[in-house]
């Protein structure tokens, strides 16, 4: 895990470095004189070889120093970055709370009722939401819940001087539009794995042992049928925590996604590096958590070592 992060950080650093135009140029603008550019380069240490600059950057990173923003001169990235990350985490968790139980429930229901009307309705709905990009479903949500029935705010901007906690209602619409996107994937995955499990020999054995249907579904089937779905949820975790650029832009939500986007637009190299590395970190962590969950649910993996 640590190794993955180290390698990733190096790749990110190199990729950003080979982008055309350097930091000094960005800071001073098009009209800068060659002398002033050279002076700034030296003061920023840009003339040092790549590995020294990487070492300096990575070293500072480990100590929690994300550097200084280029675009907003003099602002420590730390001061803005973590607040945005906090917002993103809260949004991601809200979305998780929305879509995971919902799609699991309907996925299981569709799987158990496979081929029947219930299944067709759920599958149709899942496909429809999957086909809609989040900016379309987002706009539909805004039209319905913010304009036609003015229940919720149109944008998710936090008024100056207030915190997210005082404006929790701004989370609902973005979280719903994420739910729209994820529902189709997760419920279809859950449905198909449920069907596989319900057709397995051990479920037949459990039914013919005289166990009631509900018990068979929840005790015998669910634990096995959750495995593939957990992988899907885990794989989307990184996207959910840091890659919500479209959703955040649409609603103007002050999170990591919109921060990354603005860093790209303004060529704010240190900020961009910090954001991308953080997103990578979330990916690695969520994969790790997924593996742990997998092992917890699947004793065949849990006991691979030690016992034969």
């Amino acid at each position, binding site marked *: 895990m640590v190794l993955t992060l180290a390698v990733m950080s190096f790749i990110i650093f190199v990729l950003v470095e080979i982008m055309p135009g350097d930091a000094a140029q960005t800071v001073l603008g098009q009209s800068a004189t060659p002398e002033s550019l050279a002076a700034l380069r030296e003061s920023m240490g840009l003339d040092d070889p790549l590995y020294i600059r990487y070492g300096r950057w990575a070293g500072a990173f480990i100590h929690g120093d994300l550097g200084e923003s280029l675009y907003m001169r003099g602002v420590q990235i730390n001061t803005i970055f973590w607040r945005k990350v906090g917002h993103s985490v809260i949004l991601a968790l809200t979305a998780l709370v929305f879509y995971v139980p919902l799609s699991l429930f309907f996925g299981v229901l569709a799987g158990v009722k496979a*081929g029947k009307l219930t299944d067709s309705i759920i599958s149709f709905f899942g496909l429809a939401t999957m086909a809609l990009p989040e900016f379309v479903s987002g706009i539909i949500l805004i039209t319905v819940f913010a304009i036609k029935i003015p229940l919720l705010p149109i944008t998710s901007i936090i008024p100056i001087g207030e915190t997210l906690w005082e404006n929790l209602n701004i989370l609902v619409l973005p979280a719903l539009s994420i739910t729209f996107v994820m529902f189709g994937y997760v419920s279809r995955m859950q449905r198909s794995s449920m069907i596989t499990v319900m057709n*397995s020999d*051990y479920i*037949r054995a459990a039914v*013919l042992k*005289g166990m009631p249907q509900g018990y068979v579904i929840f005790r015998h089937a669910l634990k*096995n049928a959750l495995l593939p779905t957990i992988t899907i949820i885990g794989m989307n975790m990184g996207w959910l925590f840091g890659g919500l650029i479209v959703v955040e832009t649409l609603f103007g939500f002050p999170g990591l996604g919109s921060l990354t986007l603005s860093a790209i637009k303004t060529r704010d190299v240190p900020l961009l590096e910090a954001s991308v590395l953080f997103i990578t970190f979330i990916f690695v962590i969520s994969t790790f958590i997924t593996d742990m969950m997998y092992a917890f649910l699947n*004793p065949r993996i849990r006991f691979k070592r030690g*016992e034969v």
Partner: protein
Amino acid sequence: MKNRPILEVKNLDVVYKTLTDEIVALKDINLQVGERESLGIIGESGCGKSTLFYAIMGYLPSNGNSTGEIFFKGENLLEKGQKEMMEYRGNRIAMVYQNPYSSLNPSLTIGYQLDEVTMFHRRFSRKEARKVSIQSLTDLHLGDAAGIVHRYPHQISGGMQQRICIAMALLCRPDLLILDEPTTALDVTTEAVILDIIGELKEKYDMSLIYISHDIGVVNKVSDRIAVMYRGEIVEKGSQNTIYQHPDHPYTRALINCMPRSGIVKEEVRLNTIQGYVTRRSAAETGCPYIARCEKKAHDCEKGYGLKENSPHHFSACTRAYAVDVPDRERTALKKVEENYDEEKNILKIENLYKYYGRQGKKIRALDGVTVSLDRNNVLGVVGESGCGKSTMGLTVSGLLKPTKGKLFFDGMDISVSWEKRTPDTLRGIQLIFQNPGRSLNPSFTIETIIGRPMKKLLGIKSKVERRKRIIAILKKVDIGEEYLNRKATHLSGGEMQRVALARAFSISPDLLICDEPTSALDVSVQASVLNLLGDLQQESGAAYIFISHDLNIINYFSDYIMVMYLGRVCEYGRKDEVVGPPYHPYTEALLSAVPDVDPSLKKRTIRLEGSPPNPTKKIGGCPFAGRCHRQIGEICINVPPPRVEFSDTHFVYCHLSKEEMQGISS
């Protein structure tokens, strides 16, 4: 019927509706099972054996519709709803399935899965349930029952898993126990132990029993009466002896004659085959279901067909099994003893072959010093329980695995390397066919491509026309028509796939064919035709075979020499007649005693081999079989490697017993 019937099936029909057709799965089934009675049901796959019991349990797919009556203790089960059926399932009627591993939930502990049965049916508390579960496991002679309940299914062996499934079925002391091929996936020795236990428990608990199998030998061991099913009908039923000795129905007779059984060897008899295969039955079809494949059919077969009591307690739908107006096929030998080939010519020599898997320190000794040689036009049968290294030996000879130590000579040439380093001619010379033909033929290639590829690569035949000519010729030899050339393997039946695999192997005229359980996935009638084909091809080509199987009946029928393996070592080697008769290695003796006999009059004492082979990662000082041996003579067996005892030039045994002692073993 001696006893009051506990289960009575009357005029049961099961029909599956598909989009285009109605398929008859069961037709007019009438069946009775008395109290404490044991009924065996035999038939090929697709004959509706399993469907019958899912119909009894009320567990048919939603497109299946059953009509008729099923009385269980006087109550018609077909009138019961799913809720009411819960009271019977697992409680009054219990089932055991073919594949124990997939019938146990992988993510729940054994104890959990056992406890829930009595917790639901008997309203036991968790504690009471656990006590009953442990008792039930102990009844099945499982040591350390208290420890097993905390384990997961994947942590125990197949034989133990099946005992757990049986223990689970017996928890509520059911009135009727249905066993659906419960030992098919197990080794012979394990099978023998399980069959023994089933018989014992039947007495102990006063149960009735229905035992489904494709193998008459297995059914004989546990059932008094036998019913034969064919295409959804019961075509014949009667006592064990009647069915074997005086079958009335031509299908029963043909089926028995398909089976390799004791006393039948290829030098004398060619196995019977049944033409065609089991087809689906549409609702429109009437009359005898067997007519298309029957050798004894007559012009009036359509009339008067139906199950009748021809002699007391012996029912049959037809009585033409020995009809004289259609003469029997001539009994011919499969192997003609003509000296067309230089039989003495050695084709393969294995010297002190070792193959270890795994890393240093945790090595699995799959082959632990095997020495054997094989001559042209001979069949070396390799037999042993699973995990004894027989497949590893085949793979190492074929080059798919590289030997760890030791030498391999093929036609005098050293081939102790993996296949990449072998010459094209060696590659051509050694061919392999596998247990599961479906998985060894690429599903996206046509038959022509599959067979043509080795011709192109190893024989260097570049012309497509020339290849096609040869492919058609070889397909004809394996009884497959030209029209199959452009079909894909997935569209073939199991028997056809194995024939194509054989055609692929023989298309480049190999000198050595390694057959790794080539018939275990096939039905008996198909198995017979594949064995006949293998025999014919050998007659023609003079190739040598290594024939790997766990089934001693087949090995005994088909081999010239037999090698018995245990834990990667040779126990006994010799000519066929030398190995299957005394003197024996104790392991050979146990294996032979475990083989189920098709002939019910051959009752023999089974030697119960408890436990499983020792852990192959540990180095064994003495005899590997010592721990389970019923003739162990003491410390020497455990500490000193057994000496090679020679009885003749071709027959030797690795054992500490003296020659006289081994001679004295007779079964």
